[in-house]
């Protein structure tokens, strides 16, 4: 009897030790759960049954309010399917931000590279890593932003509500950030034009 129990304990210990290296699909347990789990509702806690508990919480900003430091809302709504009135009207809207200084331009470049460069290319040439001349996974050719002549307002409309295969970036970039990125694209275009113009002149002279 003793022999059996000793052998069982030993083999159990060996199994316990040897099973440590597998894929860990289970998070394990915590000590003092009241200190580990928040009583307050944290960002990614379960919000699904708040109503049942009598908590009337809507995690959206109050309608009509604007966060501090944020730009005024875009005056145009998204067009209904088949209508392009607002898209056409968006041409008239000006960029509310003044031209960016060097520091803001650098931030705008960062935002562009994070959010846009993946398709439209780090050089704005419509050939980002997702397209790669058609060998990447993205099947549609992104627009070449260097040759795109689109007024600021219409660009904002497209980035906010999406256009063709491009989705809306309203959830990823704040209004201010969107206007900054548009400034950045326009600055890059102006830079390229300025570089091209003297070159063209010099060839003309020859």
């Amino acid at each position, binding site marked *: 009897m003793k022999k059996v129990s000793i052998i069982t304990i030993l083999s159990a210990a060996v199994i316990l030790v040897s099973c440590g290296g597998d*894929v*860990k*699909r289970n998070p394990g347990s915590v000590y003092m759960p009241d200190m*580990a789990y928040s009583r307050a509702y944290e960002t990614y806690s379960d919000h699904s049954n708040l109503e049942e508990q009598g908590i009337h919480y809507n995690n959206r900003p109050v309608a009509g309010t604007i966060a501090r430091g944020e730009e005024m809302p875009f005056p145009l709504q998204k067009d209904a399917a*088949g209508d392009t009135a607002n898209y056409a009207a968006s041409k008239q809207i000006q960029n509310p931000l003044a031209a960016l200084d060097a520091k803001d331009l650098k931030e705008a470049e960062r935002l562009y590279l994070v959010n846009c460069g*993946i398709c439209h290319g780090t050089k704005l040439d419509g050939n980002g890593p997702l397209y790669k001349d*058609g060998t990447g996974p993205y*099947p549609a050719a992104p627009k070449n932003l260097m040759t795109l002549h689109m007024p600021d307002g219409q660009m904002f409309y497209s980035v906010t509500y999406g256009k063709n295969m491009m*989705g809306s970036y309203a959830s990823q970039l704040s209004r201010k950030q969107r206007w900054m990125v548009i400034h950045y694209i326009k600055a890059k275009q102006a830079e390229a034009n300025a570089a091209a113009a003297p070159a063209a002149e010099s060839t003309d002279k020859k």
Partner: protein
Amino acid sequence: MIHLRHFAGKLILGFILALIFQLGNSAKAQDGKALFTANCASCHKVHERMTGPALEGVEDRWPDKKKLHAWIHNSAAVLASGDAYANNLFNEYGKVAMTPFPSLSDKDIDAILTYIKSVPKVDPSKKDGPTAKAEGGDNTLLFGILTLILAVVAFVLLQVNSNLKKLSDDKAGVPAHEPVPFWRNKAYIAFLTIILFLLGGFLVVKGAIGLGRTQNYEPKQPIFYSHKVHAGVNQINCLYCHGSTMEGKQANIPSVNVCMNCHMAINEYKGEKLFTAEGEEVNGTAEIQKLYKYAGFEPGKAWDASKAKPIEWTRIHNLPDHVYFNHSQHVKAGQVQCQTCHGDITKMDEVKQFAPLSMGWCVNCHRETKVQFKDNGFYSIYEKYHQDLKNGKLDSTKGITVEMIGGTECQKCHY
């Protein structure tokens, strides 16, 4: 002989003519490809519908070639003329108007149409994918069997040894005494007790320290989302999906619309084979279909984002409630790279917790890490340190550690 030469001459002439024709034709298709990529490819594919219809056989569908040209030049005019086919098409594709291309000449359009005809259809079932990864080979079983065999051999040899001893004792006339079985042998019992005590103590302490720590936690997610494919192979920036890392306490988990930014168009997986941590093969295209189910999206149709349901991803990195951690403080002010704490995410198919997230690990990093003091507005208030660095009172090569600005004070993280 003359006859033959004449014939050969004719043959060569014909061959040259055919070659020229062929070259001309392929040149046309080449032009067409360039024109197609520049003008059409952002909305159309040849064999699949995207924003607009698949263009294969487009000439046969239109009743009249002139009308097709007119449609490409200015679709709105054709719609206004009340053409039935054009209006049906317009309604079928969610009333998204086709961009007018007045600059394309008739020749250009013909070149595009020639190119469309020249694109062969790829049968997805016959596509030979990349060759399977060589099986890593798990040798545990082999070693186990080997150990068992050796143990049996050792046992047999011990038995043989004791039998031989008994025989030799018998011969020498040494009186055989009743042997004490090993479970009653006090030396054995003492030895075993010590071993068990040490082993038990080790396991208990290890388990107690591990309570609440989830290093290497690698849960199964509702969709097999490979960070290696997205952030590694396709070079998508971490902040594309987890953008609020720069602005808030939490690094956000992306919502379905962020996935759909790309997956509205990318509806199949063509990269290297995918495997779960257990080694089962995963069908990437089927996983994209799972996303479409959550999003309420059907490829080829306009997506109504209001039909989407959130995906309940399993959170991997959790800190207990009695610790405060803020992402923006580390990533924006401290300029710490994501990989410092999350490991090489770009090589993980399934993400697992890289860091132990224990207090010792936090404090250690705070002691060793230099603060990015230079040109960083967040630390401009530490005037004395800036002064000392300038005067040379503090060694600027050693810099200022997080500890020096209070990074190991209890109430920095526990309050």
